[in-house]
């Protein structure tokens, strides 16, 4: 569904991303992990076409460079790490923004656009909040509202940049379970950056470990989450054991590194 080859991004004189090859199959969940400043968010933005880059991005078999912005927006829905929710905007209006790639430049939304938005809000249990102002929402509600906008886009790929930052344990689980349910129900392809390694290993089918802009390792969670790789690239002292479902669980070891 998504393929990149030799994807590189320069910001100023700094090579933020260097020669990253990536491959995500339809319906898979790829989690991008790595220490701070490794280029995780930049990788998502490059796939989304939001930063200038070298190398190629292929979406659904088509070179992304040849797609018009609206066409790309119908393939990829993106939620940034700290989305701007205008405090005066209603939840419905915000979710409706997801329909933008389908509405003519100066046109207005159709009945279909309104129906799609309403049904997405209903699916995420947001109907009661639809006419609420975004400024009045809690952290967990905000994250669901952002997800609603992304789903209203009806794109086959969801790119989520740290969808669980600033959420407590319960809300983290709620959001990730929701993403997991939606992708199984709709056959969505999901690419997320995730901070928490255990969580990444728990939900994703595959992990990509970025370090200093390069792909340091990729593959199934158990292949990437090893004490050697995590210890080296995160400069951390960890112990990794298989959890109840066989997926790796990362523990910090006190007194390291």
């Amino acid at each position, binding site marked *: 569904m998504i393929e990149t080859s030799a994807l590189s991004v320069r910001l100023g004189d700094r090579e933020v991303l260097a020669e990253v090859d990536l491959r995500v199959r339809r319906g898979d969940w790829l989690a991008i992990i790595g220490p701070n400043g490794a280029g995780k968010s930049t990788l998502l933005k490059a796939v989304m076409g939001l930063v200038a880059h070298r190398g190629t991005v292929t979406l659904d078999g088509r070179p992304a460079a040849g797609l018009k912005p609206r066409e790309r927006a119908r393939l990829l829905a993106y939620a940034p790490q700290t989305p701007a929710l205008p405090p005066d905007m209603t939840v419905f*209006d915000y979710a409706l923004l997801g329909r933008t790639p389908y509405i003519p430049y100066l046109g207005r939304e159709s009945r279909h656009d309104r129906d799609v938005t309403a049904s997405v809000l209903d699916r995420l249990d947001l109907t009661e909040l639809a006419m609420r102002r975004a400024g009045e929402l809690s952290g967990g509600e905000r994250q669901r509202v952002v997800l609603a906008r992304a789903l209203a886009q009806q794109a086959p790929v969801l790119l989520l940049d740290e969808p669980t930052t600033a959420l407590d344990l319960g809300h983290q689980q709620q959001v990730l379970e929701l993403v997991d349910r939606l992708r199984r129900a709709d056959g969505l392809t999901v690419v997320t950056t995730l901070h928490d390694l255990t969580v990444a290993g728990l939900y994703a089918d595959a992990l990509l470990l970025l370090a200093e802009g390069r792909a340091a390792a990729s593959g199934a969670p158990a292949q990437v989450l090893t004490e050697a790789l995590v210890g080296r690239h995160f400069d951390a002292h960890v112990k990794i054991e298989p959890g109840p479902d066989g997926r790796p669980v990362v523990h910090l070891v006190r007194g390291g590194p």
Partner: protein
Amino acid sequence: MVAQAGPSRARPLWVLAALGVLAVAMVAGLLDGAADISPWQVVLQAVDWLPFVHVDSGLAPVEQGLLFELRLPRVLVAAVVGGLLAVAGAGYQGVFRNPLADPYLLGAAAGAGLATTVAIVLLPSAAGSIPVAAFLGAVGGVFLAYTLGNTAGRAGGTATLVLAGVAVTSFLTAIQTFVQQFKVEELQRIYSWILGDVGGGWDQFWLVLPYAAVSAVLLLLHGRMLDVLSVGDEEAASLGVRAARVRFTVLLAASLATAAAVAVSGLIGFVGIVIPHVVRRLAGGSYRIVLPLSLIGGAAFLVAADLVARTVIAPAELPIGVVTMFVGAPFFVGVLRMTRRAST
């Protein structure tokens, strides 16, 4: 109870209410003056002016002429200028994602001020050159700021645009101050232009109307796009929108509106900030609401402000810009305090 979910738009009730306020302000504007004409006769006469309608208002031809040649164009110019400034202000606020942006942010006022001063100093007898000079100066000021902002910083960014506007404004104001020293005897004329005037008659009205129509329609069409821009350039881009292009179009339309307003009425301040804010507080934050209601509300506000300007020290007149600033400045402080409270 859950409200019926749906997209924000200007509800008919709000539009009708705003139009009602505008109508009352306009009739009041027609009523005020030295000659004693009853409100009912003014209403009848106003109906009579509508196409295909004939009503006998019982007014003498002299009184009819007074209404038609003096008061009506004055009210109409005030309405058009007020509407333009308010809708342009709303457009600027959308583009800069800042509720305190106003139509003069990008050097329109300073450009018009300089050009008008030059016109008054060089061609003191040709009063007809002032609107043309003001219009060209306003457009030139914005063009200068826009070009400077886009070449100095990241293409299409807003922060450098605002800074460029500040720089252009100080620079052009400095030149204007320098030029006006050459003709101190014209200072009063220059200041009276700067403080604003809507009493130029039908000529002014017909002069401003085409620009007003084009720019207002263009701005009203961009309500949804300004809502998209409000989530930021990056997210707008992820939705398939080229933010820089939308910004350019809206700035073009809003600057045209500002230039047209400035050309016929001078520099009337604060309408562009005050009105969109009131609309936002009362009716909602979506630009699909803010733009149309600002247009109507700005019209009503300036007609009312002109009425105040004509009456408080009658038979003399206050400059209309003094009235709008007198209301606007305290309001501005209030908004600052409110936004500070909201962000902490």
